[in-house]
């Protein structure tokens, strides 16, 4: 459907390369990937799940993360395209949610109710292992062609490289160390959402919007801001008010 623009793709890879050589924060990096993937193939929402090595798929980053969407990711611990891609190591392409009720009796109606029509899932592959999945939702009928599939799979592979981007890439222990660290960082972000929601009387979605908005404006990492919040929720007074609207 898309025939991704080469220029756009090149821009993303330059941005990704910059992130990899810069001081590195895995959650930020995976968030960047999901965000840019959504723009690249005009997906309504993109999320990434990582396996916690006990077989649970956990949400790690997304182009968006409202409560409804988080729930859609979490359901896939039991069923859904991500679990299928994770188990088989093969992508799930152009699945039509309106006719997927038999395949995913719980996931499909939830996804439809959230306003989605199509879904795709790509495995995050590391040699013979699958360590997670990249999930794309569309508001329209899915129409990925072979070229789209290859490009999104390449993005998924870049995510895996990011997970292992330290020098000792051959060390298999590193994957465990990184994965566990990343999953724990993700938990801190959720804890911070709750702390802000309580302290400032807002929803957890609004809490996240404020935290991300502040991190961007202050050029601070999301994980770092989340840590500051759970250490002392009053330490960032900017979070008590709605962020200023960006100009234009």
């Amino acid at each position, binding site marked *: 459907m898309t025939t991704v623009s080469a220029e756009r793709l090149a821009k993303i890879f330059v941005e990704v390369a910059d992130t990899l050589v810069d001081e590195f924060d895995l959650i930020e990096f995976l968030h960047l990937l999901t965000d840019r993937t959504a723009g690249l193939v005009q997906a309504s929402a993109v999320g990434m799940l990582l396996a916690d090595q006990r077989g649970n798929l956990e949400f790690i980053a997304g182009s968006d993360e409202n409560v409804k969407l988080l*729930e859609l990711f979490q359901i896939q*611990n039991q069923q859904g395209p991500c679990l299928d891609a994770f188990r088989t190591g093969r992508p799930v392409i152009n699945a039509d949610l309106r006719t997927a009720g038999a395949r995913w009796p719980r996931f499909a109606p939830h996804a439809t109710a959230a306003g989605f029509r199509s879904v795709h899932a790509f495995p995050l592959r590391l040699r013979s292992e699958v360590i997670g999945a990249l999930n794309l939702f569309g508001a329209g009928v899915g129409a990925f062609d072979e070229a789209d599939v290859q490009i999104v799979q390449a993005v998924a592979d870049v995510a895996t490289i990011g997970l292992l981007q330290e020098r000792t890439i051959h060390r298999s222990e590193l994957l465990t*160390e990184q994965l566990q*660290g990343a999953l724990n960082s993700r*938990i801190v972000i*959720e804890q911070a959402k*709750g702390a802000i929601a*309580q302290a400032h009387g807002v929803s*957890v979605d609004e809490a996240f919007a404020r935290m991300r908005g502040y991190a961007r404006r202050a050029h601070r990492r999301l994980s770092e801001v989340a840590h500051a919040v759970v250490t002392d929720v009053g330490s960032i007074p900017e979070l008590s008010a709605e962020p200023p609207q960006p100009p234009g």
Partner: protein
Amino acid sequence: MGGMRRLCAAAAQAMSASGAAVTVMAEDGERGAMVATDLTSERLEELQFVLGEGPGADAFASRRPVLVPDLAGETMARWPVYTPAAGDLGLRAVFAFPLQVGAARLGVFEVFRVRSGQLSSGELRHALIFAEVALTTLLDGQANAPLGAPADGLVGAVEHRAELFQAQGMVMVQLGISLAEALARMRAHAYAENLQLGAVAAEIVARRLRFDPDQRSPQAGQGEAGRQT
């Protein structure tokens, strides 16, 4: 801490290890109680706190596991004093796991081996489960949880995990307590009210349940959570 010692012994056995230990630590890295399966493990654990370096200290500081399948193969720069000293005690491999839930850190769990070699994926899974049980034990100990409180893992049975951690952040702010204590209070409440932890978290996030002592039911203990309509 008798339960913790049995836990370490079971972990060591499940992972074909020579020993295991749990050290309780404060958020600032100050060391608290320690439990080990045997004298050598105890000395290994002592060693890194005396020296101020080692896999356990690093796991706690970096908030991620530190897995060392071949201690002799480590560069000396990593732990210049610990590595030879632990080697003298016969240590060949060590696997350290932080006991944490997000920003809440309670200690570190370490597994020791007298032969080098990686953990199999099954052993690794076991280690992560033991770490979670150890964390749960510490949490419930902190909250003076009733004996026989469900040892169903910390969050294992909770489907909407994000909600659980959000609720934890909310309770932390409501009561002005630590994140660890907030989770312990939620667990205690779930147990006392015979509810699933996930259901308690959902009520908190939906703002139908709050723990502020000045909101309702001022009596102390786990009955203090107030329900709002």
